[in-house]
């Protein structure tokens, strides 16, 4: 089995689950006609949401293909320059003696085509760093990354737009930036304009667009390039609730066609309904790689643990503060009493 889980806490139940899901993988072709049915049903329904997509609707991941995303012992550390002077010096000394902040310490995973993987972790666990590395914006300090397939990142939707150019020109521009050929772009142009609902605005300069319009255009381009790997950050917000729903439907359609999805979220809801695998990151390492529920459980346990510790710390602090206050009060009382009445003080001493 190519699917190897490297987790700190191996779970026997979990392994069985994996086998269960992996068995029908050979019969993937047979399963296909079945998958089209629910797709039609959902299309007809009014309230189709990403949340309503059942895991059974997901196409089987193709474990025989080379992995779509492959991380091999990836280490990423950021240099923290104390000052501009240190930075200037570092240019010539090669970052010697510069403080390092490790974001990822040896991350290993393989994601196969068609899998949808959720990344869970607290802030600073390295989720965004991983997404940045996958999209090729940032580079690993050591280790190797391989990404096979056209990647669309729903992270920075408006990045790369030139405000002086029209929407249509920007579609071309962004398409070229994403690595498409001109004929490819010409093909998707109408789809993009349709999806973004820009109508006559498409020939206006982008600087006249509202932020919502820009977002819509950015989203439409990213979704229309027919990506094979879709990187989604949950913190994404696109337009009003109606358009948001449209986006979710579009994402869902893509998932159904067998796109590899990488999803960053804190929401249990969204994760359990969108992903069939989760990677829990903790301190820049893969703490758990397996089913979503187990990963979430671990995550919640850790969060609970941290909350509990924090609460204890708070209580401790409070206790200390109260103790101190009590002492001060006693001192004050003593002084007051001493000043007021010597005899009373004598009595107390007794």
């Amino acid at each position: 089995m190519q699917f190897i889980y490297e987790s700190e806490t191996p779970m026997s139940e979990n392994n069985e689950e994996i086998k269960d899901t992996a068995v029908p993988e050979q019969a993937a072709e047979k399963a296909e006609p079945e998958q089209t049915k629910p797709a039609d049903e959902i299309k007809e329904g009014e309230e189709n949401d990403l949340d309503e997509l059942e895991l059974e609707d997901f196409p089987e991941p193709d474990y025989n293909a080379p992995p779509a995303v492959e991380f091999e012992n990836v280490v990423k550390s950021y240099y923290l320059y104390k000052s501009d002077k240190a930075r200037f010096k570092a240019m010539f000394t090669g970052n010697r003696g510069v403080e390092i902040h490790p974001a990822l310490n040896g991350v290993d995973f393989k994601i196969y085509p068609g899998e949808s993987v959720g990344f869970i972790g607290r802030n600073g666990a390295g989720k965004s760093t991983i997404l940045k590395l996958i999209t090729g914006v940032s580079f690993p300090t050591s280790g190797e990354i391989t990404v096979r397939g056209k990647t669309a990142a729903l992270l920075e939707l408006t990045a790369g737009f030139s405000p002086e150019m029209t929407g249509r020109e920007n579609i071309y521009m962004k398409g070229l930036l994403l690595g498409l050929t001109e004929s490819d772009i010409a093909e998707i142009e109408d789809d993009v304009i349709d999806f973004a609902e820009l109508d006559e605005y498409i020939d206006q300069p982008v600087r006249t667009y509202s932020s919502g319009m820009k977002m819509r255009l950015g989203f439409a381009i990213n979704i229309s390039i027919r990506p094979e790997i879709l990187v989604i950050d949950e913190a994404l917000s696109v337009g009003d609730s109606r358009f948001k729903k449209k986006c979710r439907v579009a994402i869902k359609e893509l998932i159904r066609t067998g796109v590899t999805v990488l999803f960053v979220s804190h929401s249990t809801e969204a994760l359990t309904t969108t992903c069939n695998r989760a990677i829990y990151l903790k301190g820049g390492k893969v703490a758990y790689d397996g089913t979503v529920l187990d990963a979430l459980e671990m995550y919640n346990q850790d969060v609970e643990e941290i909350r509990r510790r924090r609460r204890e710390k708070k209580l401790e602090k409070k206790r200390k503060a109260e103790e101190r206050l009590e002492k001060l009060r006693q001192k004050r009382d003593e002084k007051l009493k001493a000043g007021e009445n010597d005899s009373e003080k004598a009595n107390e001493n007794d």
Partner: protein
Amino acid sequence: MAAERSDYIYTTKGGKKTGLGMIIQEHIGQRKKIMRLAVSHLQKTYKGALFGPSWAIIKPAFTLFILWFAFRVGLRGSGKVNGFPRFFFMLTGYVPWFYISEAILGGARSIRNNRQYVTKLSFPMSNIMTFTNISSLLVHFVLVAIMYVVLIVGGYCPSVYNLQFLFYCPFMFLFFWILTWTTAPMAAFSKDFENLVSSIMTGLFWLSGIVYDTSRIKNPVIRKIFYLNPINYFINGYRRSFLYDQLIIDRENLLETAVVLGEMVILVLVGSKFYKKLRKLIPDVL
């Protein structure tokens, strides 16, 4: 199920390339994108203005007009340089200088000014330097056309030697483009370097033979030292093509050409090293 998969692949494996190899690879098949970006860069620089990108031409053209007024109308007796009226001498110096100063300054600032391509998109960083330089070059072409008209009116053109422009212009572009391999990543990494570049620009202007003829300097040592200045070489190259009707290489500038070529090789080596070193760091620090 995604039956057909495209052959898009992104990998950090095999990253043992030199900076030069990285830059060359980043440019393969990017011609259209770079040209489009060059034009949009011009539009961006002069956005919101009624005349738009034509300001890129109006500004230097105005300086040229002042030159004309000062040396042809005002100071009529400003004398001759190298046997040519001072105005035409300065015109042929100023036009390449406008490009050179723009290429040095704009080139150094290019990555910082286009940081969104680096920090938010997976964009080949060296292409930023290229399209910035090309957009300066587009302005330069227009200015050369204006200069040519003036020279024809003045009676110094056309001549067969004008075709030497086809050598000097690409050579000049290549030289200052290679220079940005070093300056742009460094300026992106540290703002101090950018300030350093912009503060030496005025010095460079006066140390290059724009307002005076460096080949007429009496002291032979100082005259030789000027050979180290590539700006001087290119400006005199323009004069050779448009004013002096001199060949690209003759006994007079043989050494100078060799020096500039040597400098270019050094710049390729240094630039390649810096690019490789800073390419991976810049997205994190910008």
